């Protein structure tokens, strides 16, 4: 329980840091912290497999990619330009309303009724909520390729759409390097741009 609270505070804090950081790099670091805490949270819930995946995929791969992108675009070191930083006039009543909603929400959650076991409802998908089934690699794999085959396949398609969509969007605007000479030029321009940013 203590672990939960500590992790919860870390997660919330890092999330807030992520969106309020002044430079993109800091945001990424905050996100890293957040993901790490999340992985720890999975561990406390006996979901070891998820925890590992979380660390490898999110912290390991995706965030590094983020960093690469930020470094390449050379704006990671520059501050976000946040624009006119004033709240719209409706913000104050809105915040009051949101706070109120959160209060009610917490209250309702605090009085949440007992969970109805799915076995009772007769679902063919079974009691997926049980902890030891949920986390272990063996059962996870089995469930993934039988009960959750369709979602799994859709996810594959989803990822492909994401990849192709990005290629399509970036395609024309990425520096299209046709020759070596041209490539060198592009590199030089980028280097100069980075230097220019650094001087400012």
């Amino acid at each position, binding site marked *: 329980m203590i672990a939960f609270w500590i992790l919860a505070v870390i997660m919330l804090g890092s999330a807030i840091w992520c969106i309020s950081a002044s430079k993109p790099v800091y945001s990424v670091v905050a996100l890293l912290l957040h993901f790490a805490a999340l992985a720890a949270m999975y561990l406390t819930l006996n979901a070891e497999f998820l925890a590992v995946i979380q660390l490898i995929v999110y912290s390991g791969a995706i965030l590094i990619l983020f960093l690469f992108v930020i470094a390449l675009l050379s704006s990671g070191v520059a501050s976000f330009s946040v*624009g006119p930083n004033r709240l719209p006039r*409706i913000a104050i009543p*809105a915040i009051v309303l949101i706070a109120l*909603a959160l209060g009610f929400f917490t209250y309702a959650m605090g009085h*949440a009724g007992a969970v109805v076991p799915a076995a009772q409802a007769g679902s063919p998908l079974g009691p997926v909520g049980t902890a030891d089934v949920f986390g272990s690699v063996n059962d996870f794999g089995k469930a993934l390729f039988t009960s959750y085959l369709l979602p799994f396949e859709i996810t594959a398609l989803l990822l492909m759409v994401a990849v192709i969509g990005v290629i399509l969007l*970036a395609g024309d605007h990425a520096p299209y390097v046709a020759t070596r000479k041209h490539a060198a030029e592009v590199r030089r321009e980028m280097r100069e741009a980075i230097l220019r940013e650094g001087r400012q």
Partner: protein
Amino acid sequence: MTHHVMGVDGSYPLLLVLWLLPLAGAILAWAFGPQLKTAAGWICSALVGISFICAVAMWGPGTQSVSGALGAHQALFSWLPGFDFGLLMDPLSLLWTLIITGVGFLIHLYSIGYMDGDRAFARFFAYMNFFVFAMLTLVLSDNFVGLLVGWGLVGLASYFLIGFWFFKPSAVAAARKAFVINVAGDVGIMFAIFMIVASVHSTAFGDAFAFAGSYNSGWLLAICVCLFIGAAAKSAQIPLHTWLPDAMEGPTPVSALIHAATMVTAGVYLVARCAPLWSQNHDAQMLVGTIGALTAIAGAILGCAQWDIKRILAYSTMSQIGYMIMGVGVGAYEGGVAHFFTHAFFKAQLFLGSGLIIHALNNEQDVRRMGGLMKKMPFAFIAMLTGVIAISGIPFLGAGFFSKDLVIQGALEHGHPYLYAVGIITAGITAYYMCRLLFVTFFGSYRGDVDPSELGIRHPELAGTPAHGADQAEAEHEGSGHGQAHHAPAWIMNVPVAILIVPTVLIGWLMFGGDNSPWAHFFAQQFPHPQLSPAPIGEGVTGLITFGAVLVGIAVAWWRYATASAQSRAVERLRGESIRMPGILTHAYYFDLALDLLFVRTSQLFGTIFGRFFDPQIIDGAVRESAFSAQWLGTLVRSFQTGLLRAYALLLVVGVAAFMIYYAVIAGGVHP
């Protein structure tokens, strides 16, 4: 749910023929106009004539009554349950059909002479026939959707015909105005249909009326009000009347057929058709009756202030339809319908008579520039005289007396003494302005050669004379160069007028005799007849009082325009009257201005406000283009910079918060 069909179901080929013939004529004249030339007019007239004969032949089936079912019903096709289409001819639609085709036929004949030489002669007849078809669709339909289709189509035909001389900007403007107001009315009917379908799951008259007693009274009032918005727009009732005077920009036969005899009375038809609905709701009756009476008197007063012969007639039409609406509104359906019937004759008569004058005077429409025409145009004088006698309601000499009396007495019998009084006063005013028209036009000496300014005609276009357009119209009209023909109206124009004189004088006797009159018999089964306590004033006495008011009106008109002294100083008198005419009357109570302020301006303002504050657009293009090179990340940042995205997200979260409060409160409550 059982389906209620009105009328005796059967096969009535004649009904189909009389309905479709005018459509065939319209298509013929439209497609082969250039080849047919003047033959188009004859063909179209003949088709309407045959339609009329068929309608007469349908008299038997149309008035038959078999075990409670009245009239003839011809099924056409079925759609969804509750959406069956068919034709219904019962006494009410038979009456309208007879007028549409009968008077329509005469006006078609007249138009052959009136439109002679017009460049678009065949097109004119195509439109006229199309109008007859649309109007027949309206009155013969056995359901609300068919009625609405006819309703829309007559509006379209009216739009085409008002704007027929489209080279006149005023005509185009008038046509557009008429169309817009009429579409507003169509929408009213559409909503009424929505509500009726929602209540009885059917659009058939039979179903809608069979359950008339089971409607929620507020809902029924809403249905009646929506229907009446349609009726008021089509029948030029206050405050939707402003299009009718302007509609006089169309050729005179159009004014006679559409804007006097038939189309504008569609509102009367609608209310009479929906009598079972109105009879269930006293508030709706009160509303319709009051609006009718208001329109009657307001139109009559405006009629006193006009100088354009067609506008005088237009306001008188508005006023007379006010009578009809008042009649059907208070529940005196026979009276209202009777006034439609007689009005169709005498108003067509008046319009065609005025057409003779306008035609002979080279499209002069200002009565101040007429005068002394009695000797020059005796036939037109007789035509107008009989018409004026009829509309003024001089006892026994004209048709209008009988029907107007039915309406006025009906108002009293159904417990509306104020409307009764308004009816009588209006009768007096009507007599005044119609006699004024007659005296100024035909008595005294001809003033066409007097300088317009001496007659007080300051702004021809403001006064309503289409002077600037008229020349052009004339030029167009004279296209084939037989100008002489205009000054001696061909027999083809006189014959219809002569034929119309007969019913104008005599037809009212059908309504003579109270409950034993042929009229009462004809409609005995058509309308609900509630038990009424006898009116405090008898029918004969009412006739006398009305006649008294009429005599006063005629006397005032005589004193002002027809005495020897008045005639000798006619020019000065007319000038004085023109100049002293109160602004409120010359501007028709400023209704146009009010409508403009109320709807046009406010909606513009509304649009502006909405556009500026509630609907922030995508970022300004200029800003976007200048910093475009930074591309993706740049766009990202800039869309934050606008603040819009944050505002949108905030709105989203506020919505979520509102949802959450609701659900959390319920969730807190359901806990066992």
